[in-house]
């Protein structure tokens, strides 16, 4: 049994859907019972809230505080004011890191989004096979570190099977992970390989929410698949695509594990992405204050990009219905 695209679309909570939404428990309950519900809600919320405070809010606030200190984790933090930020602005390695990270994100997200969209549309329009949908997801089931190591071995300049094949067909060997120019695109594509299926599946879920009768109506009007993609699929998928983009961009900026196992930031800092530099400063050089300052900078950059993306893509609104 497959989830056929012709079956009634299961709607995602995009808001503004046709028909009245079912009433919530709170709406059905009388005013007198509201207080009891509040307590119950508090109980249900408590675990999540505890998690939020312990694992997110407190570490964030403490991280911001630490960014104003000199701290090696083992002796008490010492307040140094803006020193870490001054150092950051004057640190060429930090700016280099940021540039490398942006380069990675552009390649990673650019290729991944286009590929995922193509796969999602193909899954939606051409096939109804659950097996194929499963296969698309398989690279995502592998751990990042394992994927990184396997690709490292495949792409090794001297011994990797990938380069052996290149050499066998008479092409020069390519130092995929060992050359300044190649390393970042290679890492970006390794991660595209791993994440594209997952991203495609998210977009596919978004596509399922587009009513099939729109396509039928368009077909009756004689629209081609290409035209339907641009006139129906893309506009109606926009809110989902926007959310997926925001999520993947944030994830992409935080690239770490693939770099750690394949290049360790090298050669000559060519893949020293921001998270790797932060990690090295903190856990290698015990400069937790400076590492915190760079983390705060990353937080600011990510927040700005997210707000900008949200605005530009009107992620909160849908054209459906």
């Amino acid at each position: 049994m497959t989830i056929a695209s012709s079956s009634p679309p299961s709607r995602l909570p995009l808001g503004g859907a046709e028909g009245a939404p079912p009433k919530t428990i709170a709406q059905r309950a009388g005013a007198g019972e509201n207080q009891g519900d509040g307590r119950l809600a508090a109980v249900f919320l408590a675990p999540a809230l505890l998690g939020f405070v312990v694992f997110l809010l407190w570490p964030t606030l403490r991280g911001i505080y630490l960014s104003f200190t000199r701290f090696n984790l083992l002796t008490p933090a010492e307040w140094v004011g803006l020193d870490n930020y001054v150092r950051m602005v004057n640190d060429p390695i930090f700016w280099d890191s940021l540039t490398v990270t942006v380069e990675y994100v552009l390649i990673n997200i650019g290729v991944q989004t286009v590929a995922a969209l193509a796969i999602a549309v193909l899954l939606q329009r051409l096939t109804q096979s659950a097996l194929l949908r499963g296969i698309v997801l398989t690279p995502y089931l592998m751990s990042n570190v394992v994927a990184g190591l396997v690709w490292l071995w495949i792409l090794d300049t001297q011994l990797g099977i990938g380069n052996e094949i290149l050499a066998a067909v008479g092409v020069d060997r390519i130092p995929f992970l060992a050359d300044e120019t190649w390393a970042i695109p290679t890492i970006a594509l390794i991660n595209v390989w791993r994440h594209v299926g997952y991203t495609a599946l998210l977009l596919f879920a978004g596509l399922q929410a587009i009513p099939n009768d729109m396509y039928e109506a368009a077909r009756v009007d004689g629209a081609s698949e290409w035209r339907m993609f641009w006139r129906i699929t893309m506009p109606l998928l926009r809110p989902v695509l926007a959310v997926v983009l925001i999520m993947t961009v944030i994830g992409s900026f935080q690239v770490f594990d693939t770099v750690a196992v394949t290049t360790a930031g090298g050669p000559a800092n060519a893949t020293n992405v921001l998270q790797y530099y932060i990690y090295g400063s903190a856990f290698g050089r015990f400069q937790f204050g400076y590492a915190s300052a760079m983390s705060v900078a990353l937080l600011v950059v990510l927040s700005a990009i997210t707000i900008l993306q949200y605005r530009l893509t009107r992620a909160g609104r849908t054209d459906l219905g």
Partner: protein
Amino acid sequence: MRIRTLVAATGALALSLVSGCAQGGAAGSSPNTVTYWLWDANQLPAYQACAKGFERENPGLKVRITQLGWSDYWTKLTAGFIAGTQPDVFTDHIQNFGQFADLKVLEPLDDLGIKDSDYQPGLAANWIGQDGHRYGAPKDWDTVALFYNSKMAKDAGLTAERLNSLSWNPEDGGTFEKAVAHLTVDAKGRRGDEPGFDRNNVKVYGLATNGGGFGDGQTQWSNFAASAGWNYLDKPRWGTKYQYDSKTFQSVVDWYFGLARKGYMPPLSDYNIQSNQANTQVAAGKAAIALDGAWMISTYAGFKGLDIKSALTPVGPIGKRATMMNGLADSITKASKNKAGARKWVSYLASDKCQTVVGRYGVVFPATPAGTRAAVAAYEKKGIDVSSFTEPVADKKHARTFSYPIASYSADMTALMTPAMEDIYGNGKPVSSLDRTNEQINLILSQ
């Protein structure tokens, strides 16, 4: 009421989870147990045997050994210091000693009665901190030598005797460079010193690469630099100025990475710390000689179908050959929960009794002379000649041994030197760029 109970129960559960995590790592620390960490899996059986002897002598005390891979080891140890889940005793490396001493996470071991004369020269003294206290008990040592593929050497007409008497200089590379060039073969079978040699199409490199060498060059350029009279720092221990700006050093580095430009050593892009180190290149038949450490003896001996032998490092401009002699030590953590037991265990580890047992396994050279002798005999029994590693230690007239740089902020030094050396090796940056890197490192050191 019920809700309040529920909230309380949830809170209690969460708290117990959090505190449970914190205690997890330290579980088992008791007055009767000493926890001990090491990273070399090859050495685990040897130290387990040693622990058995210790437990027999100290009824009621138990040693629990944990082995972790090199990189996980330091990450976990750091996390352990922070979370209070560190072992009582751990195998310590000079590279991290300065940092740990600065962070004050080590227990002084002055009262253990460690004497310099009980160990191979220099090993005990290296573990005295800047404050004059001892923080490590000598455990073992290693040196660096040439591992070579004997068939390739024979094909090139190079005898063992010849390979053991090579000399080197930064101008023309001496007989060492000649040998390396002769061992290099291009895709058309032409040797590196023959006309028409194609350096861009090399089948077998004369010398394997171990990368840029970070700031220490232990198995890369350090033996050359030291045999040209250069030192890492202005003082043998706890120096305050690195000397990467020295013209001697820079000429050595220029010559060494120049081997790659000439096609005698693989380019940096062929190297990977995970997938393709020098020993892999030798095992794959892509390189004839590798500069590597004594800790790799068993690895090279184990390459199937290859007869790998070892030779001394070449004699340099000072008229001596040189090799880093690096020693590990056992240290006690300051926050150890069983310091009394830990002291007993470290004393035992540093004793002839334990080191001879370890030596007999033939996996490492223990720090005491008796332990070293036991190891040499054990290697001999396996048919491995280790004289290229022991001779520089025994024959100070013809060989110079030097230690890994001992200074504060060594992690910062490594973080700055790694990309700097890779830039020279991989991107052809001039060696004079090290002047600026050296300046930056010394600025950190002067804090």
